[in-house]
């Protein structure tokens, strides 16, 4: 199952709730302002790193680059391009967009 998060974790609790509600082996894709959730050293970084034990976390490279944070990503976050986004949506049985 694929979860997408498109809100900054510093203004909205979508990422927090999402990480509480993911099953083992799920994929979480950070898009738009959601990519700020992948920032190293932020107040949510520990929770994100802890989640990486059971889920794979991706960030959309176009949104990461647009925001100038490409070199500040937590180690182990996987960058995907738009084609990768499509692939994730296609290979997972369902998608939940946390709004």
């Amino acid at each position, binding site marked *: *199952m694929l979860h997408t998060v498109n809100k900054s974790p510093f203004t909205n*609790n*979508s990422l927090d*709730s999402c990480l*509480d*509600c*993911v*099953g083992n082996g799920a994929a979480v894709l950070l898009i738009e302002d959601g990519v700020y959730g992948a920032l190293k050293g932020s107040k949510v970084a520990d929770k994100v790193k802890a989640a990486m034990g059971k889920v794979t976390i991706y960030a959309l490279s176009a949104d990461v680059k647009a925001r100038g944070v490409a070199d500040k990503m937590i180690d182990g976050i996987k960058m995907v391009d738009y084609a990768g986004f499509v692939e994730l949506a296609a290979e997972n049985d*369902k*998608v*939940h*967009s*946390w*709004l």
Partner: protein
Amino acid sequence: MSDTKKFLYVNRKAPYGTVYALESLEVVLIGAAFEQDVQLLFMDDGVFQIAKGQDTGEAEMKNFSPTYSALGDYEVTKMYVDKQSLEERGLTLDDLIHLTYEDEDDDYAEKDSIRLVSREEIAALMEEQDVILSF
């Protein structure tokens, strides 16, 4: 009629500040009309959607909260509420509208629709769906 699918509607927004809650309710009714297996989950500010005692008279908005009580008649009988979200907001089950349905397999006995769940249970609930719609 084609196969029935399991639909979970995830409600995470408070009712009157934005139109999400009302729109969700509309889509829930459509899903139920098409005889799908419809379930609702209320978490984060979404729990305020089913708070008791809503009175929108002075605000001059439509109070759509009575509609949740009608969902049982549309065979929407599973309303999940995130325990943690209630606690964070100082609410308990008693602060919510008493939602019930009549169980046709049990001589139409009145039963509670609301089921309190943990976030771990929500993870499992999501995994078992065919479709998840977020509002």
